[in-house]
């Protein structure tokens, strides 16, 4: 039977298993928005760690990061590990999000901001930021799946066909049982992601003569790839900071991951979630980067670096069966990220925009219905964006820079989030103006390609955002009573749990 048959067979098995898990999850689905969007805050440590991992790590890793390594060498490792180092901030933010989530019943991180700053407009502004900037991030996942399925099926599945398959899975899995189906399918997919990528990397390294030979070939065959900047000048300090700054604060700026800080059922589950994720992230990052390096040795000279992974998988040293399994692993990574984003955006729309601004008296049932409609609508918008971007080439349309650009927009919520937890003087006006102005700067600089002093859009946006947040907050009146109540509660509980 042909490779195409086995590709379709693999996809069918993957969808069937995923669908089965989602349907089993539905049996445990209770009622209410907290149940649908947060699995009633009762997720165990193991599933929490895996859903956090699968949501964070996407097609970006084995396709985008591998492509960036192919083009930019070791700087890509530094860039991705800077994100992982940023996870150190979880020791501050994880217990704080978790504690106030339980105390005040927040459904989305934006609701936390609305309550803390005593203004629905703050949450709505952050919500719009997420709705705008997560579209390109979802789109790159679709693109990754499209490229991969097209290549493995030797062109019989068009790029857009792969994207359609991904879109349908994500809509189904996020709608079937909300967070419960997303978390369970994420856990299944995270295991596929790490197992398949480790196996295929082992096969490739073995074909290159083992780790010793692989590293010595890397040093001799591709001079300049192991330094920053590279011999071709890629990964200047400005490029590194421009890419890494949005990634560093990913844990709080991206609502699909910060919403997960509400879900662990206990402190023990929180610890397992954080520890499990750090180990998963370290291993998966090394695998993805080594994969990209092996592509520089085995498939040199590609014009589009994002095609490094598909080209590597098409080599005769990779058995067709294994290539298909890896394709499924990367598809799983993409789908598990998109469905989490869709679910978060649906909760954000339902709670922070529909209930917050449009209809304050909407029932829980009505809120849920609105949220469930948002899922397919956002999926279609991201799909159209992906369709448009898939045909483009150049650094700005590579998967990694496009992902980082999306996070650059979300970065503008970071001063507001810091202020919520650590600065009683922060005000709603400061928060709103800083987010809006920062986002406009990022969008304008991104679209025009303007980089004054060589600094990237996210860096400029962030600097101006911080200045505006602090300046305007100092000039306006803070919600002192709420700030004191919020922070006093945290201080008391942090001490009780031995958090710092």
């Amino acid at each position, binding site marked *: 039977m042909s490779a195409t048959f086995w590709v379709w067979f693999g996809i069918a098995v993957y969808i069937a298993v995923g669908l089965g898990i989602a349907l089993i999850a539905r049996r445990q689905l209770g009622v209410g928005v907290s149940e649908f969007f947060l699995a009633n805050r009762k997720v165990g440590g193991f599933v929490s760690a895996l859903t956090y991992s699968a949501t964070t790590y996407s097609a970006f890793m084995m396709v985008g990061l591998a492509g960036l390594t192919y083009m930019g060498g*070791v*700087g890509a*490792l*530094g860039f991705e*590990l*800077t994100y*992982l*180092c940023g*996870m*150190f*901030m*979880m*020791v*501050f933010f*994880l*217990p704080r999000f978790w504690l106030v989530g339980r105390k005040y019943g927040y459904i989305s991180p934006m609701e936390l901001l609305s309550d803390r700053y005593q203004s629905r407009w703050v949450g709505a502004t952050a919500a719009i930021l997420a709705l705008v900037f997560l579209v390109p991030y979802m789109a790159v996942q679709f693109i990754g799946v499209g490229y991969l399925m097209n290549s493995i099926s030797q062109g019989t599945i068009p790029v857009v066909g792969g994207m359609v398959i991904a879109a349908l899975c994500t809509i189904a899995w996020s709608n079937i049982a909300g967070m419960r189906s997303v978390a369970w399918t994420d856990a299944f997919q995270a295991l596929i992601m790490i197992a398949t990528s480790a196996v295929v990397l082992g096969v490739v390294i073995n074909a290159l003569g083992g780790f010793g030979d692989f*590293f010595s070939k*890397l*040093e001799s065959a591709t*001079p*300049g790839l*192991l*330094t*920053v*900047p590279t011999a071709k000048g890629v990964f200047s*300090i400005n490029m*590194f*900071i421009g890419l890494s700054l949005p990634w*560093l604060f990913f844990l709080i700026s991206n609502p699909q991951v910060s919403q997960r800080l509400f879900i662990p059922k*206990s*402190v*023990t589950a*929180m*610890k397992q979630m*954080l*520890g499990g994720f*750090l*180990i998963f992230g*370290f291993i998966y990052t*090394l695998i993805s980067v080594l994969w990209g390096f092996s592509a520089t040795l085995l498939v040199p000279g590609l014009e589009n670096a994002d095609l490094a992974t598909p080209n590597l998988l098409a080599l005769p040293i990779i058995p067709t069966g294994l290539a298909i399994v890896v394709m499924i692993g990367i598809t799983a990574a993409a789908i598990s990220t998109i469905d989490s984003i869709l679910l978060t955006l649906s909760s954000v729309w339902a709670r922070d925009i529909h209930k917050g601004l449009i209809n304050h008296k909407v029932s829980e049932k009505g809120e849920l219905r609105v949220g469930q409609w948002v899922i397919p609508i956002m999926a279609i918008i991201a799909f159209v964006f992906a369709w448009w971007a898939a045909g483009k080439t150049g650094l700005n349309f590579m998967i990694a820079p496009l992902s980082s650009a999306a996070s650059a927009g979300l970065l503008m919520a970071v001063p507001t989030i810091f202020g919520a937890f650590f600065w009683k003087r922060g005000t709603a006006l400061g928060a709103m103006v800083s987010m809006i102005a920062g986002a406009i700067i990022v969008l304008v600089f991104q679209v025009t390609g303007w980089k004054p002093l060589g600094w990237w859009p996210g860096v400029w946006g962030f600097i101006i955002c911080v200045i505006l947040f602090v300046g305007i907050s100092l000039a306006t009146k803070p919600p002192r009573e709420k700030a004191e109540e919020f922070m006093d509660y945290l201080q008391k*509980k942090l001490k*009780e*749990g*031995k*958090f*710092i």
Partner: protein
Amino acid sequence: MSKFVWAWIWFALLLALDIAIPWFILTRVEKVNGAFLFWTVWVVAAIISAFIIFLKWREMER
């Protein structure tokens, strides 16, 4: 100084090293035991320090 402040100082130091070592000290080392090894060890240090802190967290009453 409190543990909270020390933890932020440690994190800031990690970020300073993130730039200083690869771009200013190892920029000419075209070996795996240059920037590649540095970033690997560096992030392991960050991960271990996070473990040291969060393993002390205590279960709380519901």
